[in-house]
């Protein structure tokens, strides 16, 4: 709980920092605070407590996710440092909004009440509508903001409608009461199931599942690169945290009623995401589709709903997010040097900047799920969890998807190492930024080799 408060205050501090002339040091304040929050968060481990009349429930699941989100935000601030130093944007405004969004994300993974779910989603989203359009003169950025906003608002409507229907049946927004109602009372009206599906739709939009994925490619492409990175990683992680929390707490007992629908969504998401990514020539769009496909894999955990699947979810999302962040980080540099975000800008990167190329390569391997990168282990664990419950067809579909995904992830690698660029100048990245990339790389590999620690997180 303290974490939530600290981060909210940090947002306000960031917002007013400009007034107090702290603009130069705001980055350090943010990073220090995030570190502190991370430690405080871990301090709560194994102390599952409910706050504010059961509005927020900080259990290990929440702590794990909050830790993950804080860590990702931490990494994000490192990766985006150069972007904000180059004064393209108003740093403190951006930081404030990012942190507000992060607050929403934290709420989204620790809620115990549907109203907090709604608030979390909104707090997380609204700053992003603004950030997506933060290049005010850039039409693409404008369009991204509009699309994100329009569709986000529309999807919120469905989320709310779903919540309302659930409330109509249960008479409470409280998750444990809903769970109680589902398991004890039974005999649920059709309205309840409709509500479940509506919520599924609303959250499905946030995680960009088919057929609610349309916004993702356009928004990722239009938004500034690091904002896209934020959306693709932290927002998605939080949305999954919220999604899984709701379904695992409330709807486990009636999974027969929605699992079929979800399976269809998952199957199509994996196929559509992967297939569409194949033909992309724009890196950000490609990553968006890759994110859609990965969302499909992540949704698979919702079919299982055991401790193991929670572990699998956290592990997978962590691996996905860290690799994606690293990719976006690399993409940022490529855009900075080569001026555009087409796949062709990666040509010859293996020669002109080996470290950057290595970072991209390892990230791609991780996303494609190839050892020793962490992505492999995540996939392996996910498949194990699924096969234990006998979801062979879906797993086979995922394998097929993985194969297709190799196609586009490796496109980047091939561009970097297999083709020569017309622009042969060596790209210079400062030691600091190199170090950041290398540390992330090491993390990706190290967690891939030693994932033991992360696997036992959820063991209620």
């Amino acid at each position: 709980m303290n974490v939530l408060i600290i981060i909210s205050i940090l947002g306000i501090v960031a917002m007013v920092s400009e007034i107090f002339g702290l603009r130069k040091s705001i980055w350090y304040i943010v990073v220090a605070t995030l570190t502190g929050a991370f430690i405080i968060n871990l301090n709560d481990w194994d102390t599952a407590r409910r706050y504010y009349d059961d509005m927020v429930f900080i259990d290990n699941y929440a702590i794990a996710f909050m830790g993950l989100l804080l860590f990702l935000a931490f990494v994000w601030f490192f990766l985006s440092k150069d972007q904000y130093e180059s004064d393209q944007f108003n740093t403190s405004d951006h930081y404030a909004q990012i942190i507000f969004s992060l607050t929403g994300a934290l709420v989204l993974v620790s809620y115990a009440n549907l109203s907090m779910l709604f608030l979390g989603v909104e707090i997380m989203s609204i700053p992003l509508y603004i950030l997506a359009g933060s290049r005010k003169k850039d039409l693409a950025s404008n369009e991204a903001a509009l699309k994100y906003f329009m569709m986000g608002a529309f999807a919120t409507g469905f989320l709310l409608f779903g919540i309302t229907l659930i409330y109509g049946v249960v008479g409470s927004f409280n998750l444990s009461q809903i769970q109680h109602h589902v398991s004890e009372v039974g005999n649920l009206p059709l309205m309840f199931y409709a509500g479940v599906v509506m919520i599924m739709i609303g959250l499905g939009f946030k995680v960009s599942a088919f057929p609610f994925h349309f916004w993702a490619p356009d928004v990722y492409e239009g938004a500034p690169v690091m904002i896209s990175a934020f959306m693709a990683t932290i927002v998605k992680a939080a949305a999954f945290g919220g999604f899984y929390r709701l379904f695992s707490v409330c709807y486990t007992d009636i999974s027969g009623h929605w699992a079929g629908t979800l399976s269809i969504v998952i199957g199509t998401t994996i196929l559509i995401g992967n297939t569409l990514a194949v033909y992309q020539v724009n890196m950000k769009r490609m990553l968006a589709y890759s994110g859609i496909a990965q969302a499909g894999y992540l949704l698979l955990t919702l079919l299982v709903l055991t401790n193991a699947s929670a572990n699998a979810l956290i592990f997978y999302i962590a691996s996905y997010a860290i690799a994606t962040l690293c990719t976006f980080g690399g993409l940022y540099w490529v855009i900075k040097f080569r001026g555009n975000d087409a796949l062709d800008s990666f040509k010859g990167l293996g020669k002109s900047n080996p470290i950057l190329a290595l970072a991209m390569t390892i990230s791609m391997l991780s996303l494609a799920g190839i050892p020793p990168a962490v992505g492999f282990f995540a996939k392996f664990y996910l498949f194990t969890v699924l096969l234990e419950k006998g979801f062979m067809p879906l797993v086979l579909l995922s394998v097929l998807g993985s194969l297709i995904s190799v196609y586009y992830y490796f496109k980047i690698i091939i561009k970097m190492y297999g083709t020569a660029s017309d622009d042969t100048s060596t790209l210079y990245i400062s030691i600091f930024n190199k170090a950041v990339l290398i540390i992330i790389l090491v993390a990706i590999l190290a967690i891939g080799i030693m994932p033991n620690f992360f696997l036992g997180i959820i063991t209620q």
Partner: protein
Amino acid sequence: MTELTWLIPLLPLIGFLILGIGNKYLTKSVASTIACATILGSFLIVLSILFPLINGTLANTTISYFDWINTGSVHLSFSFLLDPLSITMMTIITGVGFLIHVYSAGYMSHDEGMTRYFAFLNLFVFSMLLLVMGSNYIVLFAGWEGVGFCSYMLIGFWYKNQNYNDAAKKAFIMNRIGDLGFLLGMLLIFQTFGSLDYATVFTTTSSIESNSSVIIAITLLLFVGAMGKSAQIPLYTWLPDAMAGPTPVSALIHAATMVTAGIYMVVRSNVLFSLAPFTLEFIQIIGLATALFAATIGLVQNDIKKVLAYSTVSQLGYMFFALGLGAYSTALFHVLTHAFFKALLFLCAGSVIHAMSGEQDIRNMGGLAKKLPITFYTFLIATLAISGIPPFAGFFSKDEILAHAFEHSPLLWGLGLAGALMTTFYMFRLLFLTFFGSFRGTEHQKNHLHESPLSMTIPLMVLAVLSTIGGFIGIPEVMGGGNWLKKFISPVLGGTAEVHTLSHETEWLLMGLSVGAVLLVIAIAYIIYVSKKTVPLTEGVETSVAQKTLYHKYYIDEIYDTIVVKPSYLLSNMLHQLVESKLIDGFVNGMGTAVNKTSAAIRFVQDGSISYYLFAMVVGIIMLLFFNTVI
């Protein structure tokens, strides 16, 4: 006595290694000395074993050196067997081998690749010794393949000429066809008897019924191996082409030793073959057919070596004919005498070619008898021997074969005799065209004519002596001889005595008939080629269809080319271009393309319009709700 056995094959191998490694540094004389010395060494050791074996002071011995392949049920040791059969072959190999080495020292003295030549010749002797000394089929097979390889290297010795290389390749591949049969035969033996050791295999045959399918399969497969190695129909076409190699090679490998490996193998496996009368009959037919078929081709060939080559094929057919009749020792006897006179013939031919500066066409020779007296007389002796004129070596062995044939049926005897007569005819044709009449070559060649150096003529003389007296080791009973060879070999033949039961009168009659017929044929040949001075027509001139067919060797090469070689290449092309590229790879790539195409097509769904997106979303929502609540 047998302590030095291992040195017999090893000496040539050492020779090979020295010559092979020191190729660049050795002078020609050193190289030839080393090569000859190693073979001589082996020969002497062989003799040191031969005499005790003859005396009976040395019994058959198996000497085991080390486990070669020993795993699971496979226990194969690298071991040698010394018995009358192997020692006979070893004597031929090292003895004739030594003479040919010596001869080569003269013959090849002008060739820049002489060291290489001797290296491979030594390696050949090594392999051949391995072949005959092995005490199990696998060592035999090692030698079997080894001689094939050496033959390949030596046929293609002048590797700059691609025709020679083709000939070498052809030889190797055709041999390999036989080798496959042999290998499968070996595997079946292993399967049936659980071992490849002669000792074990031949003593466990009691459980096998005569003419049972297993034994027929084994023997047929082994015979396929022999067909390849010993140039029998249908795998004989490589041997005439193999004449591309240096002439001493033809003498050693393609006349005296390697090509008789098939006969050796059948004799060695006589226990098995005797159990399969069906196979023997088959061998009989193939052998006789080859003998006649090759002889007819030999009648019209104009290349001195080609004539000898077809003669070799024909004689090998004779030997198989004998084997098919169950006359193993007779076949071996013919191997022995054939080794002498055919090696001699080839060496003489070599001497002629040497004198003629490489000319091989007998139409351009003639009247060489005066210029090359030693060559002429030795050639004459060899020709008499091959024609079966008593008391030359060929007479005894050939006569024994014919006697066995007559015992089976007079028809076979008749056919056999016909073969012998054809042999006589083409051999004398060769003799007359080459050495009689007047010289038909160029002026340059005429001035260059000379008798060969001593290193070449001495082997000729030695072989001539052997061709003359070599038959005496097998003088038949009817002539008062004890047929010593048969007795010597009989332990190997395991009591399957093969004495023909013809009465002495019949035997004398047959001999008289055949000798008479042979003399008649010689007379005919003399009339045609010496008196009438007929010279074969130059190519391109119209001749009768039969003659043309014979001249073109029944077009067998062309037929093989059409039904085997070309379809293989066609199949290769088809597999590569159709199955590989279009079908399999097409399918694999097609999957990739399909994904790509799908992606290209469905990305237009994402058309950029918010209203459209929202609409799609709503459709999706409705469908999901419908699916979830209704279904």
